[in-house]
């Protein structure tokens, strides 16, 4: 099942590879069909997981395991497996990957430049990210982690805008710098424990290695914190977002950042629980600074896309705050925030992209009264914005309030600082909506069209639906997350 999900986008990419260049329409449909199939599989995975969870037996460990020995070098202590499985933590992330990849294909419908290659890279990216969320072997995890860089670099530097080469290179270097430390730490961990199996390492965290465990912890965290990202290693994010094409921004904010949070919860915490606990105040401090720093920065942005990008820094700070609680509630909140931020900020980037497609500018001061011409885009933008500022009955609130509840006892000051980030969020979101969409109609924008393409409407509708559904019935998500977090919380709690 999981392998099928990984192979589907690759199959699509392979088919695109043999499609003639000039058949753009066919290339689009191939990408759409394969990403739809992948989404369907991810939905089946999630639904079956939920059914299993609600059955009498419940879920113990991982489901849908695909596993075989890959590099057999037991004598050398280098025993690498192909090992896929999902639990309550990864099942929602897999679903998110399927959903956002499909949405990314939809909103790329009007790409005209090298269509075939574009969709090849997009599909490869989907496989790479999904692989990260499913891998249960450190080396395999690392390989998928690195695999994601290649398509991202291509997508930003070829189909991007502005200083696209600079931004693509910056993204690449930042990630590699982080993952170099991660690889070293993985090797030390795996060789000392004689296994790269995450399940094994989680059950028996190594007590001693040739380097201090705290160094290993920060080595692993280096990659994850860069990816998340948090202050002060966040500067690649606004540049990458601003210069990336819309669909790539959606995937970047929607799923790629989540690889950081996911890695922390899947690997850093359960494998190095003692160190994680020791450094929880440092993490909480970084989180609070990120939340407020990101929000304060966002206020003054005049580029609509950069504004959403900086708000991501702020929102990812909440994830780290949840993680830093080292408790079930906070960590569940972090996992929820990863999912909800994925849909909300993904939708915000879609809306910014739709506006840009029409106005050909992202400068907020140049726009005004766009609501007159595009009521649907304006309304959906407002919904996404309200979700982003944490309005109850939309999904962002569920995640944020869970994080706050989890964090209040352990980190009261950081929590209160983070809650005030919500006021700033109301400020930058509503101010932007007012300047862009409200006010008298202007002649300059009198010719614009609303979102009329079926692909645009489908993408927006799907995202809005997921935001509202989780906001009103959080249990469709929280029950899964809870089951995935409980064992991790137990390990960290015992350390």
């Amino acid at each position, binding site marked *: 099942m999981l392998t099928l999900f990984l192979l589907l986008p690759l199959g699509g990419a392979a088919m695109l590879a043999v499609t003639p260049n000039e058949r753009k329409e066919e290339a689009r449909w191939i990408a759409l069909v394969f990403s739809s199939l992948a989404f369907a599989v991810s939905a089946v995975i999630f639904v079956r997981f939920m059914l299993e969870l609600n059955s009498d037996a419940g879920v113990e460990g991982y489901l849908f395991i695909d596993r075989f020995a890959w590099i057999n070098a037991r004598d050398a202590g280098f025993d690498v497996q192909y090992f896929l499985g999902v639990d309550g933590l990864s099942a929602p992330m897999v679903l998110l990957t399927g959903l956002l990849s499909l949405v990314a294909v939809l909103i790329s419908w009007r790409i005209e430049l090298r269509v075939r290659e574009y969709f090849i890279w997009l599909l490869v990216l989907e496989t790479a990210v999904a692989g990260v969320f499913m891998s249960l072997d450190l080396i395999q995890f690392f390989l998928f982690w690195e695999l994601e860089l290649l398509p991202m670099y291509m997508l930003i530097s070829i189909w991007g805008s502005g200083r696209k080469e600079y931004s693509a290179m910056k993204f690449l270097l930042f990630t590699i710098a982080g993952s170099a430390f991660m690889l070293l730490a993985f090797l030390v961990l795996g060789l000392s424990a004689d296994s790269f199996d995450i399940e094994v390492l989680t059950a028996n965290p190594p007590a001693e290695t040739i380097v201090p465990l705290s160094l290993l912890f920060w080595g692993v965290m280096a990659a994850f914190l860069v990816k998340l990202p948090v202050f002060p290693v966040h500067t690649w994010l606004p540049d990458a977002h601003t210069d990336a094409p819309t669909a790539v921004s959606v995937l970047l904010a929607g799923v790629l950042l989540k690889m950081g949070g996911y890695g922390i919860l899947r690997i850093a915490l359960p494998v190095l629980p003692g160190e994680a606990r020791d450094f929880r105040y440092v993490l909480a401090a970084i989180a609070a600074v990120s939340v407020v720093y990101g929000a304060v920065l966002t206020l003054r942005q005049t580029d609509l896309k950069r504004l959403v990008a900086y708000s991501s820094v702020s929102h990812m700070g909440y994830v780290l705050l949840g993680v830093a609680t080292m408790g079930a509630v906070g960590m569940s909140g972090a996992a929820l925030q990863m999912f909800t931020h994925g849909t909300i900020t993904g939708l915000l980037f879609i809306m910014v992209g739709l506006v840009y497609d029409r106005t050909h500018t992202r400068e907020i001061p140049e726009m005004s009264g766009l609501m007159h011409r595009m009521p649907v885009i304006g309304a959906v933008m407002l919904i996404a914005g309200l979700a982003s500022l944490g309005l*109850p*009955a939309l999904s962002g609130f569920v995640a944020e309030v869970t994080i706050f*509840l989890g964090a209040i006892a352990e980190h009261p000051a950081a929590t209160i600082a983070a*809650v005030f980030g919500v006021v700033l969020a*109301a400020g930058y979101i509503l101010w932007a909506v*007012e300047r862009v969409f*409200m*006010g008298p109609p202007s002649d300059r924008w009198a010719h614009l069209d609303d979102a009329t393409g079926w692909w645009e409407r489908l993408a927006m509708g799907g995202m809005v639906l997921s935001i509202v559904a989780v906001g009103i019935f*959080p249990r469709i998500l929280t029950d899964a997350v809870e089951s995935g977090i*409980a064992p991790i919380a137990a390990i960290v709690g015992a350390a």
Partner: protein
Amino acid sequence: MDMEHVWLLPAIPVVIFAVIGLFGRLLPRGGDWLAILGMGAVTVLAALAIVDFQGDNIAVWSEEWMKISDGSRVVELIEISTYVDSITVVMLTAVTIVTLMVMVYSVGYMAGDSRYGWYFALLSFFAAAMLTLVVSGNLLMLYLAWEGVGLASYLLIGFWWEKQSAAEAAKKAFITTRIGDVGLLIGIILLWRGSGSFDIQEIIHHAESGGFDQTYLTITMLFLFAGAVGKSAQFPLHVWLPDAMEGPTPVSALIHAATMVVAGVYLVARMLPVFDTVLIARDVVLYTGLITAVMAASMALVTSDIKRVLAYSTVSQLGFMFVALGVGAVTAAMFHLLTHAFFKSLLFLGSGSVIHATEEQEVEQLGGLRRKMPATTITFTIGAIALAGIVPLAGFWSKDEILVAAQEGAPAIAYITLAATAVLTAVYSTRLVLLTFWGEPKNRSVHEHAHESPPVMVIPLLILTALAVVSGFVALDGVGEALGFAGGIGEVVYEGAHGHAYALNETVAIGATIASLFGIGLGFIYWWGCAARAEAARNWAPELHALLVNRYYIDHLYQATIDRVILGLSGVVGWFDRRVINETGVDGSAQGLGYFGLRLKFLQTGRIPNYALAMAVGVIAIALVAFGTN
């Protein structure tokens, strides 16, 4: 209706919101009839529930919303539940009646608007959120509804978003109240941390049995109160309400006079048993209300926009309610909330009638409308008398209750300030009536095309007028008995052992009446006939006048804070982020590496003697270090 089905009350309008919101364009008349029928049904159901209500506190329904467990132990369980008691009943009465009246009135007021259907969808959404707020049995659901009414308010203030000022007012309202809302959220989280529950009754029980640390609870309740301050537009977060008058006038009547803005009062009343255990927090409620009451009334004196006068008046009257809560008199507060809902929505709808007829809301441009709009004049005047607190109209009874409570339960300063505010209230009420309806028309062209409003607007005015006259009588024993609650409102609406039958305190009643008459007299002296005396009064203390007109410079202060401090900080942080972190830290290190690479490449000379020399130096260095360590 059974109390278990009280969830139907918000459920009906939310469904109607969805139907009109999605299919409004397909419905005849944009679906206004659907909204009104639905609200009518809600009003009937609420009336049935109120009749059935036996004075018991009943938690009626609950459902698990989400839970998070830690292995086997459930560490967080959030339930949503409904709860009905006498406070809820008062709120239900006010909310359903005023909402229905406003919806009917809006058929006339909003006729011809390009977003007519959407308007009714939003009103239904608001009704759903407001009803959820008043029936919710736990704080998280209350918060959800709290933000819901805030959203409705945002969308309705900004209903004419093509007007820059309306868009800005909507944003200002949302952000200002959100500052308070964050306080409320922190308060709720802290209460949960202390008691392990979101359930209001459990929290009250926990507080009454001394389960909280006193300091902790004081801070918590102050955070919670911040939410009430924001929503009920109390000082220092009152600045959004006058600007909120940019919305359609029926919205002002509904949301910004009768219902949403009293949510703060409702919250404090609901949590009053907890406030009773930390008296410092209760004193903060008292003095916040007191400052707000007198300050807002003074600003109402000099405001020339008819709706803004009423907005300041609302802020001031809400201050009265908080004073009552600050001395623990929940009966008085809820009673005034009820009567105020009727007479203030009447006044707002009356002003809407004037604006509808003249398209003018500056009193300097109005005047002499009594001949052209007799029904509006009479109803508005009755509303103003009720507001001024003249016996036997509704405002008299409830304001009297608050004055009695303040006299008994607070330092003398509170009673004196309230009495002075009562004078101011009478003055600005009189001024408003005289300038709008009496005297000679100040602007001929405005006066020319003025006309009485259509029946669909006048009938709600008449109904609300009747309520503004009689709703005060629910305090009386006999009236209460006839309606099914023996002893009047005082025997029904209370927390704990504070219940008491209404008894007129003659001293206070006579004093208050004299104060009101004095105020009305002052109003006549200055604004009856020529404007010379008012002019003279203005010139008597120009600084004071400037202070009031500029709203104590509070808006200026906030704007400067946002522009200079917050956006300034944002600019500084932005500079730091780009220059220091990005260009120096990130690009700088990249360039540095490049530079070193450029320099270091010259070491690769390819000439054997150079390498040999380097090798020799290295060997000697190692040897020295080795010897040194031995």
